[in-house]
């Protein structure tokens, strides 16, 4: 079964590619926009007893377009002593990593971009490309604050990549596959000691893994309390200090789009992804063939809901906490998260063998 089968598998190749690109853009930009409006504009304001934007559109819902318009009008400045080519490319590298990430996310039984067996592996690999972009931005800006921010970002992202990988391994062991689609199907078709009322979302057994994954995601996204690289009270804006206009906009979109994509991935790995427990509808427990076609529309909606809940938590934490110091943050990763996730892997492996 090819991807996007709902649109008919017999489309010519170019049309399929176009559809995929469009689908990718929607999958990146739609969550990003929703997150920014719902959480950054509205939830943050409510938490600070304000109303947030109210003028553009009903309840300020068009505010985002106004902001984008504003940024596009701005001059694209690059500092005289900056390494121009690298400076200009950096935001694109960051955004690219987001697009590459979304490529493996399955949204429904047939609604996916690519379906390959090393999905988890690929996802973890491309998610660190953004580190490169951030380092490039920090280094090429010819600004001391940017440099400090870039270096901090590199150190932090590398440190938190590890717990993230390790926490995912637990899921991979339990599912016995690295294919994200398979992981989703497994979670919804498995049963807990013969009871199949809610499938078997891995958060039940991998609770620690989920927690570590979310913490690592928080750090990967450089959201408070891990926002040392952009620490606006120390480093002005870290690696983004010298950016303006649409390059800043790209950084901005990438930040929230990545938040969305990571939330999607977390929901796939731990919360059962697009699926509903298959037993509700009497679908066959294995393989995606017997699943009703409406899941291709319902699946993305379910995913979106789960994503919103998870990003909501990410943002909630962001608005409530102060930030760590650089060394505390490293210590937390190496001394707490990594050992705990290693223990988690061990226990999972033992239990897997035992059952």
């Amino acid at each position, binding site marked *: 079964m090819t991807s996007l089968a709902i649109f008919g598998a017999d489309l010519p190749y170019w049309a399929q590619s176009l559809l995929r690109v469009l689908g990718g853009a929607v999958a990146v930009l739609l969550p990003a926009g929703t997150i920014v409006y719902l959480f950054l504009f509205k*939830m943050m*304001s*409510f*938490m*600070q*007893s*304000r*109303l947030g934007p*109210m003028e553009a559109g009903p309840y300020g819902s068009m505010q985002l377009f106004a902001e984008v318009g504003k940024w596009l009008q701005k001059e694209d400045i690059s500092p005289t002593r900056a390494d121009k080519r690298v400076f200009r490319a950096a935001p694109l590298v960051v955004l690219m990593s987001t697009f590459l990430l979304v490529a493996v996310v399955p949204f429904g039984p047939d609604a996916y971009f690519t379906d390959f067996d090393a999905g988890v592996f690929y996802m973890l690999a491309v998610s660190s490309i953004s580190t490169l972009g951030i380092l490039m931005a920090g280094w090429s800006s010819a600004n001391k604050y940017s440099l400090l921010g870039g270096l901090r970002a590199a150190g932090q992202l590398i440190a938190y990549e590890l717990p993230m990988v390790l926490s995912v391994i637990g899921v991979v062991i339990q599912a016995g596959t690295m294919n994200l689609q398979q992981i989703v199907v497994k979670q919804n078709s498995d049963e807990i000691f013969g009871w199949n009322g809610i499938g078997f979302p891995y958060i039940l057994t991998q609770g620690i893994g989920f927690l570590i994954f979310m913490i690592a995601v928080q750090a990967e996204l450089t959201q408070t309390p891990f926002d040392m690289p952009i620490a606006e009270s120390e480093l002005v804006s870290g690696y983004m200090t010298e950016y303006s206009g649409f390059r800043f906009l790209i950084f901005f979109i990438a930040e929230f789009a990545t938040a969305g994509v990571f939330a999607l991935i977390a929901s796939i790995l731990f919360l059962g992804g697009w699926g509903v427990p298959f037993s509700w509808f009497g679908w066959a427990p294995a393989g995606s063939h017997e699943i009703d076609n409406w899941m291709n529309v319902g699946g993305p909606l379910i995913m979106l809901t789960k994503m919103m809940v998870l990003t909501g938590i990410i943002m*909630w*934490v962001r*608005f*409530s*906490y102060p930030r760590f110091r650089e060394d*505390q943050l490293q*210590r*937390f990763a190496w*001394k*707490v998260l990594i050992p705990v996730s290693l223990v988690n892997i061990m226990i999972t492996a033992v239990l897997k063998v035992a059952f």
Partner: protein
Amino acid sequence: MQKPRIPGLLKGLGVTFGTMAQTLKPKKLGGGAATVQYPREKETPTVRARGVIALREDNCTSCMLCARSCPDWCIYIEGHKELAPPRRAGGAPRKVNKLDRFDIDYALCMYCGICVDVCPFDALFWSPEYEYSEPKIADLLHDKTKLGEWMETVPEAPELEAGAEKKKGK
């Protein structure tokens, strides 16, 4: 690194969530945001608020006291003497001071209230009006007609708190 105790972190989340619930609660139930949507809703400034200075031209004798005691000298007064008809029939004509110019430059004024305080003839008053910003800084120079118009917005002085000495009638 301290051992992570959960309560502190969770309490913080609780506070922000509480504030959100409070903001989302309908106005009728005592909720709502702490902010107001300015051009649509307005807060009324207190009676004593120092918004803008109003001038009662008839009372002013152009004695220049206010202009002299203003800390940044932003009051400009010019006047001349005029003969007014006598109060009683048959009396000598009185000399009165006529204001030619009475300008306050609000670009300079620092709203200290000294001018209103020192005026011995009750010609200056504070009004809590505050919406008089201008696109051009020169337009912030209010002349005596404009200052006179503010007189309508001057409120009554508020009642005093219990235990205060009653003001002697001025």
